[in-house]
C-alpha cells in the first residue's frame, strides 16, 4: 500500500530528505573543516531531493487523471492518524510549491554564499515544500492544522534567518506571535466543529451539514474562526500587518516562497476548512459576500500602502495583499454563482502570482545581492538604488520589469490572463453588484501601475546610480533561475490555455469542496 502510493512518496521524499540535507551539510563542514562547503553540499542534496520529487509528482498526476475523468475524485492515502487526499486543488499547490522550491534552491547558492547556517536554510526549504504538499492534501481538520502549524514553524526559522539583524528579528517575532494567535483561533474553530458534528473528516462534516436543514450558530462561529485564523496567514486586511515585515526581511529566495506559495497554501487551508461550512443552510452567499469584502479591502489597502513604499521588497510584499484580493474575488464569485469559472480563475491567478511574484522577488533579490549583500551591507534595496540598473544587469532588470508589468495586469503577460478569467466569471453572474466588484478590481489594477511603472522607468535610466557601478557581477545561476521563471510568465501571456490542464481540475475540486 505505502510503497505503491505516489502520494506517499511525494510527501515522504522531501520530509525524509530534510535531516539528510542538514546532516550532509554539517558533516561536510566538520570533515573538511572548510567554511563554505556546508552550503554547497546542502544545496546539492536539497536540489537533488526536490528534483527527485518530480518523479512521484508525475506519477501522481497521471494516476489522478486516470482515475477521474471529471477531475473531482482524489487519490487517497491513510496511515494511522494521517489522512491525505490528492485532488485537483492539491495538485495545483504541489506544482507551485515544488516548482518554486526547486528554483529557489537553485537560485540561493550564490545568494547565501557568505552566510552561516546554510545547511539549516536548505533543510527548512526542503521541509517546507514537503509540508505544503501535505497541507494541500489534508483530508481532515486535524491533519490540516498539524501541517499548517508545521509550515508556520518552518517559516519562522526561515524569516529570522539573518538572526543577527535587528529588523529580521523584529519581523520574526511579529510573524511568530500573530501567526500563533491565528493558529489558536483555528483550534477553537476545530473545537466547535468537533463538538457539533462529532467528526473532523472534511467529507463527513460536509455530509453532516448537508443533512441539517437549520442554521447552526456554532458552525457559523467556527467558520468565522477559520476565516480569521487562517486569514492571518493569508494576510487578509487588517490581519496582514506581519506580512510586509516578514516578506521584506527574509532572504529573497524565502520572500519568493512566502509570497508565492506560503500565503497561497494558507488560502487553500482556509478554503478547505471553510468549504463544508458554506453548505450550511443557505449561508453560501453570506460567505461569498464576506470573502468579497476582504477582497476589496485587500486590493485597496494593499495598493494604497504599496504606493508609499520606497523599499522594493516591501512594495512587493504589499502587492501580495492586492493579489490575494484578486484570488478572493475569483473564489467569492464562484461561491456566489456556483460555477467553476471563477474558482478556476482565482486558482489560475494563484498559479500566475507564484510565477510573477516569485520572479519579482528573485529578480529584486538578485539586485539586492549584487548591490548590497555581496559588498557586505544589509541595507534594504530602495527604488533609487536601482536607477539605471539595466545597463549593468540587463537580465535582472528585464525580468523584474516583466514581473512588475505582469503583476500590473498588462498583456502579453500571465497576470493579464488570469485577471481576465476572474473578471469574465464575475460578469457571467449577470448581477450588478458583482459587475461593480469586477470594475473596482480592474480600476485597482490600474492604480497598481502607479507604483510598478516608475520602478520600471528607474531601472532603465541612462544615468546609473553609484551603487550600480560599485555592484558585483551577477552570478550565472541567478540569471538562469530568472530566465526559467520569466519564460512561463510570457508564454502564458500569449497562450492562456497552457495551464488549463491544471487550473480547471483545481477549480472543479474547489467547487466540490463547496458542495457544488
Amino acid at each position, binding site marked *: 500500500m505505502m510503497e505503491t502510493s505516489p502520494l506517499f512518496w511525494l510527501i515522504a521524499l522531501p520530509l525524509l530528505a530534510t535531516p539528510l540535507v542538514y546532516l550532509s551539510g554539517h558533516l561536510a563542514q566538520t570533515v573538511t573543516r572548510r567554511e563554505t562547503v556546508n552550503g554547497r553540499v546542502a544545496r546539492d542534496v536539497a536540489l537533488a531531493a526536490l528534483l527527485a520529487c518530480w518523479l512521484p509528482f508525475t506519477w501522481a498526476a497521471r494516476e489522478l487523471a486516470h482515475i477521474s475523468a471529471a477531475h473531482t475524485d482524489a487519490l487517497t492515502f491513510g496511515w494511522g492518524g494521517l489522512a491525505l487526499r490528492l485532488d485537483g486543488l492539491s495538485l495545483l499547490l504541489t506544482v507551485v510549491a515544488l516548482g518554486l522550491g526547486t528554483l529557489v534552491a537553485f537560485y540561493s547558492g550564490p545568494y547565501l554564499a557568505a552566510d552561516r547556517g546554510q545547511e539549516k536554510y536548505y533543510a527548512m526549504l526542503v521541509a517546507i515544500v514537503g509540508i505544503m504538499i501535505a497541507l494541500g492534501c489534508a483530508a481532515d481538520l486535524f491533519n490540516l492544522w498539524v501541517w499548517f502549524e508545521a509550515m508556520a514553524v518552518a517559516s519562522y526559522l526561515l524569516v529570522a534567518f539573518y538572526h543577527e539583524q535587528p529588523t529580521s528579528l523584529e519581523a520574526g517575532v511579529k510573524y511568530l506571535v500573530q501567526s500563533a494567535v491565528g493558529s489558536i483561533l483555528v483550534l477553537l474553530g476545530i473545537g466547535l466543529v468537533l463538538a457539533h458534528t462529532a467528526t473532523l473528516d472534511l467529507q463527513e462534516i460536509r455530509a453532516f451539514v448537508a443533512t441539517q436543514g437549520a442554521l447552526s450558530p456554532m458552525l457559523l462561529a467556527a467558520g468565522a474562526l477559520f476565516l480569521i485564523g487562517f486569514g492571518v496567514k493569508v494576510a487578509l486586511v487588517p490581519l496582514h*500587518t506581519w506580512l510586509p515585515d516578514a516578506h521584506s526581511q527574509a532572504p529573497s529566495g524565502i520572500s519568493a516562497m512566502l509570497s508565492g506559495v506560503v500565503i497561497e497554501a494558507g488560502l487553500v487551508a482556509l478554503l478547505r476548512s471553510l468549504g463544508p461550512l458554506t453548505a450550511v*443552510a*443557505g449561508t453560501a452567499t453570506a460567505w461569498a459576500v464576506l470573502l468579497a469584502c476582504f477582497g476589496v479591502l485587500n486590493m485597496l489597502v494593499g495598493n494604497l500602502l504599496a504606493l508609499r513604499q520606497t523599499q522594493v521588497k516591501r512594495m512587493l510584499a504589499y502587492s501580495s495583499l492586492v493579489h490575494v484580493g484578486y484570488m478572493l474575488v475569483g473564489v467569492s464569485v464562484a461561491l456566489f454563482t456556483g460555477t467553476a469559472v471563477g474558482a478556476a480563475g482565482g486558482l489560475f491567478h494563484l498559479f500566475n502570482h507564484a510565477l510573477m511574484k516569485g520572479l519579482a522577488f528573485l529578480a529584486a533579490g538578485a539586485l539586492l545581492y549584487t548591490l548590497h549583500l555581496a559588498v557586505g551591507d544589509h541595507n534594504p534595496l530602495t527604488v533609487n538604488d536601482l536607477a539605471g540598473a539595466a545597463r549593468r544587469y540587463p537580465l535582472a532588470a528585464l525580468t523584474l520589469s516583466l514581473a512588475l508589468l505582469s503583476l500590473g495586469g498588462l498583456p*502579453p503577460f500571465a497576470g493579464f490572463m488570469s485577471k481576465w478569467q476572474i473578471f469574465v*466569471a464575475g460578469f457571467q453572474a449577470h448581477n450588478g453588484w458583482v459587475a461593480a466588484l469586477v470594475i473596482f478590481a480592474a480600476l485597482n489594477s490600474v492604480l497598481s501601475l502607479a507604483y510598478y511603472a516608475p520602478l520600471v522607468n528607474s531601472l532603465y535610466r541612462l544615468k546609473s546610480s553609484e551603487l550600480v557601478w560599485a555592484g558585483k557581477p551577477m552570478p550565472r545561476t541567478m540569471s538562469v533561475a530568472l530566465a526559467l521563471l520569466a519564460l512561463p510568465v510570457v508564454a502564458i501571456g500569449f497562450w492562456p490555455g497552457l495551464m488549463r490542464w491544471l487550473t480547471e481540475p483545481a477549480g472543479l475540486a474547489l467547487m466540490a469542496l463547496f458542495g457544488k
Partner: protein
Amino acid sequence: MATWLMWMTIGVPWLGALLVWRLGDERPNAQHHAAAVFSLLAGGTALALLPFVGETAVSRIPVGGVFGDFTLVADGLGVFLAIVATVVGSLAVIFSGAYMHGAAQLGRYYALVLLFIGAMAGLVLAGGFLLLFFFWEITALCSYALISFHNDDPKAVSGGVKALIMTQVGGVGLLGLALLAYGYLSSYEINTFLAQAHTLPAAVLSIAAFGALAAAAAKSAQVPFQTWLPDAMEAPSPVSALIHAATMVNAGVYLLARLYPAFAAVPGWKTAVLTVGLLSALLAAFMALTAHDLKRALAYSTVSQLGYMVYAVGVGGVFASQFHLLSHAVFKALLFLSAGAVIHAVGTRDMRQMGGLGAMMPFVRAVFLAGALALAGLPLANGFFSKELVLEEGLHHGPLWAYVGMLLGAGLTALYTLRMVAMVFYGETAVTRRVHDASPRMQLPLGVLTFGSLTTWLLAGPFTRLLAQTLPYHALKEMTTLEMAVEILTAPATALALLVIGLGLSAWLLRHRLHRWQRPLHPLAQAAVQSFGFERINQQLTVGTKGAAAVLSRTQTGQLNWNVAAIVGALLLVLVVLSWIVGWLVG
C-alpha cells in the same frame, strides 16, 4: 494565404523587435537598418492583404475555456488601418535613423517601436474583443515606455505614467464591454456582437455603449481624458508622429466606428459621442492657440482633429470619420516629423525661440506648409476633402448647434495653423546657432508624406468600396472619387466652411488691428492655458489618493499589541457582520 499575411503583419515586426534588441547597442547602424527592413516588410505584408479584402479572410485559433477563440479578420476597415499603421510606421522608423542618430539605448527604442507597430496591426485586425483588448493594452504599454524613453527626465517619466494610467482608466470601459459581450452572448466575436446586440437587455447595451465611449475617449485623448496627450510630447518626435498622431490615438475612433451599428440605437449615445467630439475639437483648438511649445501645439491640434472624427461617428458619418482619419494620419505624421526636424536642428521646442527658420530650412518649410494646408482644410489637400465631408455629414444628419460649433472649430484650426507656421518659419529669428536643413534620410519620409497629404483624397472611391463591401452591418454607400469631389466642391456648405477658414486666417494676419478684441478674450485664453480645469481634476485625484495612502499608512504602526488588537477586532467584526448578513438573508 490571407490568413498567413494577417499573422505576419503582427509577427514580422515583433520578430524584428526581438532581433533588433538582441543585436545589441554596440551596433547602432545594424539596428537602424534591421528596424527599417522589418517595418518595411510589415508594411509589405499589410499591403499584400489588399487583394484579399473582398473575401474577408478569417483566422480562428481556439484557445478554449473562457478565452474563446483568437480571431483575426481581414475586412476593409481592419486592413486599411493596418496599412496606415505599418506604412506610417516604416516612415517613422526610417526617419528615426536620422533623428535618433547617436542616441543611447537604441535597441530598446526600436524594439518598442516595432512591438508597437505589430500590436497596432493586431488591434485593428482582431476579430474578437479579448484579442482587441489584448492588443489595445500592448499599444498602451509601448506608448508609455516610449513617452518615457528618456527615463532620466522626470517630466518624461510622469508623462508616460500619466498616459498609461489615463488610457487604462478609460480602457476599463472596453473591458466592461468585452465582458458584457461574452457574459451575454458567450462569444468574443465582434461580428457576433454586431449581429446580436439588439437581443441584449437595453440597460446592458447602454452600459456597453458608454463603456466603449469612455475607452475611445481615453485612447483618442478626448474630453475629459485629453490631458495625457500634451504631456506625451516628451517622447522622441518620430514616436509622437507614429503613436500620438497617426495610429494609436486613432484606435478610439476606430472602436466607435467599428461598433457604431450596435450602439446607434442606444438612447443618448450618438448625442454623447458628438458632444465629446465637439468639446474636444473646440477646447483643444483654443489650447493650441495659446501653446508656445511646438509639439504641444501639434498635440492639441491632434486632439481637436480627433474630435472631428468622433463627431463624425456621432452624426452617423462612419465613412467620413475614417476618411478624415486617413488624411489626418498622413498630414499630422508629416507635421510631427517636420517639427522633429526643426527641433533636431534648433534644439528647443519653444516656438518663441524659433522664427525665420524658413530661409534656413527651405525643404522643411515646404513640407510643413503642405501639412499645414491640409490641417487648415484648404482646397486640394487631403484634409480639405475629408473635413468638408465631416462637416457636410454634420449639417445633414446632426444637430445644428453642433455643426455651428464644428464650423467655428474649422476657423480656429486655420488660425492656430497659420500662427504656428508664422512663429516657426517667418518673422525675425531668435535662433543663434547654425541650423541645417533636413538630412536626406529625413527628406525621404517627409517627401512621401507630403505627396500623401496632397493626394490621398484620390483614394476616396476605392476606400468607400472597400468599406461598403466588407462591413455587412454598417450599411455604407459606395461613391466614386469624382462623385465625392464634385459633391464637396459644389455644396454650399463648403463655401461657408471656406469662408470661416478664411476668417480664421485673416484673424491672424489682422491680429494687430483686432487688438481691442484681445482684452475680452483674455479670460478665455487664461482658461485655455490651464486646460479648462481638467488638469486640476487630475491633480486633485492624485492628491486625494496620496492623502488617503498617507492616512492609511499611519495606521500601520508596527506595534505588536496593536497588530494583535487588529486580529481580535477583525474576528469580532466578522462575527457581527456574518450574523447580520445571515439574519438578513434568512429573515
